[in-house]
């Protein structure tokens, strides 16, 4: 079997197996009265995705959460990269600022969400802020690591030819840090989606996002819709993660991490 075919067949096989197991548990293991605990996949598709009214609700919820997540991610990226750049310029700046970034990461986000509600209301702004806080740290930590990991000989080369801080940052540190920055972005992209769902789930007011739908559906025993909402939220998270992976591969094609995996058969050719 060719490698390309194998790359396609194996994941498809695993996916089909998961669907079959889901179907069997739903129809054979669980009796009909309790089937709402795990509705079969065809029912989820029929009720949630083939019914235009239900699908519209789901897509509207997903659209709002996507807007929240992407706005949060963009803001977290701008703030995170700016902070990392500032911290990379001097050890004392890093020592002064980094502990607060760590605090942001360690404070339970759910403990802060009610405060955001008090300060900024229960609308779009608070939800975006939740996303920013949850997505900020991976960007700061990874970007700072990348900016500080430049080969010292390259720094010497730039010093030898009188490069100033800005030139060094723009022509050396930032390009060199791109693989680390994208690693942080991929983690933060997933975190921003979780932040959007969590914020939505918690605030419970205004136009419902996908998190709010996930809260509402089980209370109405609409388990097909609940499963569809969870699937859509997960697919959105996956799509964002995949998009950043794709962008990363394009932008950092020069980096060793984009070489074929030497541990896989034929990978070191």
């Amino acid at each position, binding site marked *: 079997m060719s490698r390309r075919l194998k790359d396609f067949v194996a994941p498809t096989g695993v996916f089909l197996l998961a669907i079959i197991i889901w179907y069997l548990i739903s129809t054979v293991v669980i009796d009909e009265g309790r089937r709402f605990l795990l509705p079969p996949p065809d029912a989820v598709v029929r009720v949630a995705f083939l019914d235009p009214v239900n699908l519209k609700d789901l897509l509207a919820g997903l659209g709002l959460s996507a807007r929240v997540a992407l706005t949060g991610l963009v803001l977290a990226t701008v703030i995170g990269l700016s902070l990392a750049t500032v911290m990379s310029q001097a050890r004392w700046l890093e020592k002064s600022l980094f502990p607060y970034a760590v605090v942001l990461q360690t404070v339970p986000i759910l403990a802060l969400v009610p405060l955001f509600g008090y300060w900024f209301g229960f609308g779009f702004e608070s939800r975006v802020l939740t996303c920013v806080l949850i997505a900020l740290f991976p960007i700061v930590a990874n970007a700072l690591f990348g900016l500080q990991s430049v080969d010292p*000989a390259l720094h010497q080369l730039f010093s030898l030819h009188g490069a100033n801080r800005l030139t060094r940052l723009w*022509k050396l540190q930032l390009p060199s840090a791109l693989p680390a920055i994208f690693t942080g972005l991929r983690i933060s992209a997933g975190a921003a989606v979780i932040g959007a769902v969590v914020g939505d789930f918690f605030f419970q007011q205004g136009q419902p996002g996908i998190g709010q739908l996930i809260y509402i559906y089980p209370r109405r025993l609409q388990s097909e819709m609940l499963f569809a909402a969870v699937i859509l939220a997960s697919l959105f998270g996956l799509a964002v993660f995949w998009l950043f992976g794709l962008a990363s591969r394009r932008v950092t094609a020069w*980096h060793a991490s984009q070489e074929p995996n030497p541990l896989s058969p034929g990978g070191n050719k």
Partner: protein
Amino acid sequence: MANLLTIKDLSVRYPTGTLALDGVSLSLAAGEFVAIVGPSGCGKSTLLKVAAGLLAPTEGSVAKTSDHIGFVFQDPTLLPWRSVRKNVELIGELRGMSRDDRQKAATEAIAKVGLSDFAQDRPSTLSGGMRMRASLARTLITRPELMLFDEPFGALDELTRAKLCDDVQTLFVADQFAGLLVTHSISEAVYLAERVLVMTDRPGRFAGEVPVPFDYPRPPDIRYTPEFAKTTAGVYSLLQPPSTSEDGK
């Protein structure tokens, strides 16, 4: 001939307290090629970094009559996201050359090291020798008056090393820069330099100097002549056994 580089009574102590160099003096005239050999860790590279202005002396003085310096590092130190051409242009960018000038100079420098067919390639697709050539081309773009070579061929195989030595000699003869080469290889030092300075183990001091009695350009098979062997033996005898400080220059 006027000295391009004059180092007097140079001592360098690292922040850890290690004395890397102790009372080293050296002068290099314009258009002269000098090699420094010595055991690993004797402070050869430190001396070169002080000469380049990358490291401050603890004691002593360093005087240069030109800021037009090229530094060839132990590794090619190319930016992996840039093509060979863009890597070569980098120094022009840092030195404020106009776009036209640096493009022209890069084309010339790349041709000089024989990489014209690979100008658009990224460093990761090139062999070790080709990367080092790209690094040489990058250094040549601003036509430096003083070239500092920090063990540039150490990581390469014997054949590639010999070929690159020939290339450096060709460039030296054509461009007439002054060269200061730090190397572990006695044969390389004798092949390229007009005189070879021998350093002691740490703290580095000069144990002596061996003049090389060959004119440029030197054919590759000069390495197999009795006189070449005699000169390398002269360098080797200064390296073994370790010299005392009284021998220092």
